């Protein structure tokens, strides 16, 4: 029954990428923040699982935007709290 579906191939799923440590530190200094100021994403998010990101990774999401055409967002992977 289990057909493997790669969520990243779906048209509605934006592009997810794991950021390298240098990219992350550049990002943090650009906005003058620490990682806990970033928006979060759960580690069991299907897209996060597919790209193999782990807790404390920062991922970059590039998506189509109504207003800007293309928008970048960054999210910190966190563990989903139970219940």
């Amino acid at each position, binding site marked *: 029954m289990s057909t493997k579906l790669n969520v990243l191939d779906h048209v509605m799923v934006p592009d997810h990428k794991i950021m390298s440590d240098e990219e992350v530190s550049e990002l943090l200094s650009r*906005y003058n923040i620490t990682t*806990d100021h970033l928006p979060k994403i759960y580690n069991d998010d299907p897209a996060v699982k597919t790209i193999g990101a782990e807790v404390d990774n920062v991922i970059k999401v590039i998506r189509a*935007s109504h*207003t800007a055409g293309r*928008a970048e967002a960054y999210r910190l992977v966190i563990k989903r709290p139970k219940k």
Partner: protein
Amino acid sequence: MPSPKRIGRIQFGLLSPKEIREMSVRKIIWADTYDDDGFPYPQGLMDLNLGVIDPGLRCKTCDQKASECPGHFGHIELAKPVIHVGYTRLIRKLLRVTCRACGRVLLSPEEIEKVVGTEDDQTGDILSEKDVKKERVCPHCGEQQLKINFEKPTTFSEVVVEDGKKVEHKLTPADIRARMEKIPNEDLIPLGINPDVARPEWTILTVLPVPPVTMRPSIILENGQRSEDDLTHKLVDIIRINQRFKENQDAGAPQLIIEDLWELLQYHVTTYLDNEVAGCPPARHRSGRPLKTLSQRLKGKDGRFRGSLSGKRVNFSSRTVISPDPNLSVSQVGVPRAVANEMTIPVRVTPYNIEELRQIVRTGPVRPDVNAPCGANYVIRPDNRRLRLGADNLDTVADMIEPGYTVERQLRDNDVVLFNRQPSLHRMSIMAHRVKVMEGRTFRLNPAVCPPYNADFDGDEMNMHVPQTEEARAEAFILISVQENILSPRFGGPIIGGIHDHVSGIFMLTHDLRWFTKDDALYLLRYSGIEHMPKPGKVEDGVEYWSNKQVFSQILPEHLNMVFHASSCQNCDTCKKEMCERDAYVRIIDGQLEVGTIDKKAIGAFDGQIVNRIIRQQGMHRATNFIDDLTKLSIRAIMLDGFSFGIDDEDLSKTEYGQIDEVLRNAATDVDRRIRIYEDGQLEPMPGRTVEETLEMQIMQVLGKARDLTGQIAGRHLGLGNSAVVMAVSGARGSMLNLTQMAGCIGQQSVRGERIVRGYDDRTLPHFKKGDRGSDAHGFIQHSYKGGLNPTEFFFHAIGGREGLVDTAVRTSQSGYLQRRMINALQDLKVAYDGTVRSTGGKIIQFQYGEDNTDPTRSAFGDPVDVKGIVESILKEEC
């Protein structure tokens, strides 16, 4: 101001019986409150040790007066333990996961580790009921476990199997308490309980705290009778039963009576804590009103949290009914004299304003008429003493004031006030206006500002707030005045503009070509502040005439260039431009309307192209002036001809009625024919639909077309001489569909987009044959509102109308709740200087505001640059 602090941690725990006794200042044993002299009974519920509420008495605990004593807790020793309703869930869980004999958790250390995580990594879950399999054997002492049943609100029982039958064995609170006591501290941690502050047996009450009288004050009614607080009533019940329980227990009463009393005590304690528990009849007042006990005080909209702590109340505000006044500017608000006399603004006395303020003080608290200078209600001396101004002390106080005093002067023309209408759904729901003191008892506002407030004049009330400091007034005027809010951040277009009669009026003024004499032209423009009349458009027999387009052009800014299509544009395949027979091609060159009709598209609220362009090119201030001029001009234009609508405006001639009848007859036969095809089994179903669905769709289509045809027939007869047509074409109100329904045919009534099918077996009403699929049997109304409906049609119309009502009711409540949640989630977000959207904690919500860093009110209907508009205004041509 104290600096904001970060909360390190919050600890939640239970009150232990020891703590309850320690914090108690008195043991309460008497159910009575006051004796015959009105003095509190010692050790009664109103004991003087618990605090005082009567003025004059002193608290026996802290020796302070009624206003200063915060109150102190007492306690009641319960005859037997009872369950605290708030913790029944926790009790159930603990009973199910621990051993009935040894009290240990029914899991081996390895099993616990699987759920909770290892000692160094406690990132797992806390133990839940689901982690323990039912009726297992205790891994620590080998005891066979029993199933625990829980019955709302507070009954627990064990299921014992006797002779193959299941028997429920009730657990008393005392039994449960004994089991809770057995649970060792170490086993509580994986269950999510900190045993230092919350031993599980503390969820079973053995001693009940009695809250201080200050939180349950009694009130004295007009007849001198005392009326006690609901909590006191409930506590009286508890003490009475407790007392009786003790007596019976001491007398060695039979087990049955003891159990009954125990249950009764449990009921009273339960309702004392929460009077809305499921499966428990609420305790009622003598009058039948349910008592408002502890939980009810905290819960809900008027509870302690939402009502008292988050709720804000203000001074310097007023509220009254609103009514329209098109002669006011949109930025003004008409304030009744009675309100203006009551509301004040503090003004510091300085050497520069002392004479003016003396005059104001001399006028006193009653301003004789709206044109008189304002008075003052209070004077504040430098030592902060307030002097109330009355008829007797005006001159003395006026001579007394000197720099350092503050005069609370009344509201006067041009003061800045905030004006608001609930529900405050968007930022334009509160705007700053300039005061205009007027006679009458209502707030007056220009009808053009109705759209942002969503106000009408069917009895709406609005609130006014008076900012008290210079900073507040400046901030209000610069940020939230009406001028600054013409553009809505929702869609980047003007939300303030002409409505209803403004649109009809300006349409009637500017449609086609008309000529006005000097008298009429001046009548129209009288209030618009025109300094020079332009050259007359034509001179006939020595009489000068000005065209309607010339008149309108007088209120336009000088260098305006625009080309657009009016609301009345029919979107023809090839636009005839200047030759448009509807005069729907609008061209404004250098502030002169050359061709075209001004209507909703040009000046209406939400559309307002001209308003929009003026804002972009000349700023908010000019746009406000334009709207003011426009409202005045359009009202005068509509009054010049007069505008009304009556029942005979829906009359058609005999020919039209004949044509309508024929169209409807043809439609009915067409429907019958299609039904016959269906019944013969000849109907080809459409792809993906059943035969029935296909037939229904065809019928709906035929009937829909028939209704539109009647509309066209009616429309041919009713021209622009008809007021309803003017309103529909100009976009002021209503549509051609409304007109069709009034004069032609109302058409198909529907429920959920389908013809009406519900009712009796195989038919909607007993008037029809079973299985009749004809048009009139399923809610097609072939009459018009003017012609009148027959009884079955009337009934179908009511069905269709009810659906609409229900939909609106459901939609408003759902969207209201959605709005509340959205606002709670988004409040306090702001755009930081680096363009990110951040919460108060500095957390980033959006990396760029709107992902394009564009303020919608500075954009052209969503686009950062209005390329089309710029090109058009330079080329002076449509592109």
